[in-house]
């Protein structure tokens, strides 16, 4: 992350003319002076982008005041998941200098690498298609969702901290010993390739994020009340009231996070479906399987039966509150609020009863505690004062 540790200057708006002249000046300077200092590259930079982009001072503030770092740390890039790609594989265009024809990087671009299982050109399109069909996609029931800017993109979760931590640890552990490598490079003679391949699949043998990190990632959106309300959703404070989260708090091994119950078994996270979708693990008929054995992956509640599994896992949130309130008034929801509308549709009659019972118990105990403890405190204080008085 060294390239973010630049001196932070005060945000300053520069006119594009000025930027261009600066870039020209820098180019000319490096053309004559910089060549002498150029180092040999770890990975061949065939497009010669690093001719400029290897200089740490390179960057600017864009029109919105956001800091853009245009510096590429060659070693870090070579160790990243995309380290074997050329710049132009993803950054399409960029034929002129200064770069006037910049396009946003599209992860579904075919990047001229042969995918080994089919020998076709590789792209992330498979994942993107699955993601678009998921609950986080832009389209629902053939219609575009409102507020598309709220929805997550690839980079929202795939923050490029994906430098494989094991990359630099070769020779330091049993799994990453030189001996392991020797077994590969016997046939696959290019060591760089063997290391990359090894990382590629070991990366997928476990989850990259811990349970607590998953919760942090999901709550970064799902705890934002306004954002969730725009889409008719509750915030997942309701999850934080569960014993599942208690285990996550302590970092218990295999503690259930969002993924464990919401990602269909044997699918990746990109496939999350709404609970009304029959493929979703929280769909009512899939619950027993989800709670009990997760298709053999985990055994959380081995003997779970339907009555247990069909119950509510998250605590009751404000949807239940709204539904219970509407039922009490015996009127259909009058508000145009999306949350209220969905509350009406989603919260069953039985659940409203459950919510009310729990509410009454909680209220009863609150009153009981206040009255009992309050009168106890008064009683004992009186006792103390009287006894002291009598003794003196």
């Amino acid at each position, binding site marked *: 992350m060294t390239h973010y540790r630049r001196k932070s200057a005060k945000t300053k708006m520069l006119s594009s003319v000025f930027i261009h002249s600066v870039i020209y000046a820098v180019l000319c300077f490096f053309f004559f002076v910089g060549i002498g200092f150029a180092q040999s590259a770890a990975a061949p930079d065939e497009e010669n982008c690093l001719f400029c982009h290897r200089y740490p001072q390179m960057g600017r503030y864009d029109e919105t005041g956001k800091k853009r770092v245009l510096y590429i740390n060659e070693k870090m890039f070579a160790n990243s998941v995309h380290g074997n790609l050329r710049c132009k594989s993803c950054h399409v265009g960029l034929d002129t200098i200064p770069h006037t024809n910049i396009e946003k990087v599209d992860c579904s671009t075919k990047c001229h690498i042969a995918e080994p299982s089919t020998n076709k050109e590789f792209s992330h399109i498979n994942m993107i298609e699955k993601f678009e069909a998921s609950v986080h996609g832009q389209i629902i029931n053939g219609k575009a969702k409102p507020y598309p800017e709220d929805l997550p993109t690839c980079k929202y979760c795939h923050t490029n901290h994906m430098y494989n931590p094991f990359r630099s640890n070769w020779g330091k552990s049993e799994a990453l010993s030189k001996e392991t490598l020797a077994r590969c490079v016997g046939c696959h003679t290019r060591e760089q390739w063997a290391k990359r391949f090894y990382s590629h699949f070991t990366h997928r043998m476990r989850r990259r994020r811990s349970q*607590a990190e998953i919760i942090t990632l999901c709550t970064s959106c799902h705890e934002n009340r306004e954002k969730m309300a725009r889409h008719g959703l509750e915030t997942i404070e309701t999850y934080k009231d569960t*014993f599942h989260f*208690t*285990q996550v*708090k*302590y*970092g*218990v*091994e295999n503690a259930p996070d969002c993924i464990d119950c919401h990602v269909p078994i044997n699918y990746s996270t990109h496939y999350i479906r709404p609970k009304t979708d029959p493929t979703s693990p929280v769909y009512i008929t899939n619950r027993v399987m989800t*709670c009990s054995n997760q298709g053999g992956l985990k055994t959380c*509640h*081995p*003997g*779970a*039966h339907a*009555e*247990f*599994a*069909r*119950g*509510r*896992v998250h605590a009751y949130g404000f949807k239940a509150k709204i539904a219970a309130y509407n039922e009490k008034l015996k009127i259909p929801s009058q508000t145009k609020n999306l949350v209220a509308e969905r509350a009406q549709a989603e919260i069953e009659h039985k659940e409203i009863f*459950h919510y009310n*019972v*729990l509410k009454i*118990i*909680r209220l009863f*105990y*609150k009153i*009981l*505690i206040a009255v*009992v*403890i309050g009168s*106890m*405190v008064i*009683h*004992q204080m*009186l*006792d*103390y*004062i*009287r*006894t*002291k008085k009598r*003794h003196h």
Partner: protein
Amino acid sequence: MEKEQETKKKIPDVKISDISFKTELDGDKLYFIRLNRSERVQHLIFVICFIILVITGFMTKISKDMLGWLGTAGNIVFYYRSLLHRTAGVIMILTSLYHIYYLAFKPAGRRLLFDMLPRIKDITDMISNIRYYLGLEDNPPEFDRFSYKHKLEYGALFAGTTLMSVTGVLMWTEQDWSKFLIDISTLVHGMEAILACLAIMVWHLYEVHLRPHKFPIDHMWLTGVIDEEEMKAEYPIHYKKIMNDPELQKIYTEVRILTDQGLKKIGFIK
């Protein structure tokens, strides 16, 4: 002159505190049994279990930000937390079941149950005791073996332990019940825990630790006995009953010699 000198010599030897200390240690003294051996053991087990249960139970309510320092040790901490909580819970339930057996089948237990039963006198006692606190009466009411304070506390403990045991066992076997029942259990278990914990802190710990003549601790929970003065002051009706009835005297009184030997005998010192 000689006489005067003699008295002068004697004065420094006779300190009031020395005398009282000496007599207390030397003389045989009448003590009244409040808790017999079985009850003391039951109480001790209950205290240990209660403390473990409170700590390991409220550990689940700590916020995430306060647990960061645990790091990877959290997994082990949580494992032992769960184990301890369940173990202490089981021991507490077994102790409670033994206590019910004790109440039903042991003579001492039956007497305890009989004396613990609520009576109309408790209500009048409570009213006049509060009147006494407020300065409306000059003397507190005369209590029998158990005052209304003891009865309320015992009743609360009985109800609380029953609720906590039932809801605890329900949560332990959660997959055999409907989720709604588990939700209720979780809520009741948590709320009852807060109530019980606060009640013990305010009511019981005050009674045995902070009351002016008990501070810093009432040793009765270990020795099981109180002396005659305290008995007269705190439980006068019971005192009169005992003194008028030789049968009760056999049960409730004990002459203990509070020398070092005597203190050893009742387990006060080693």
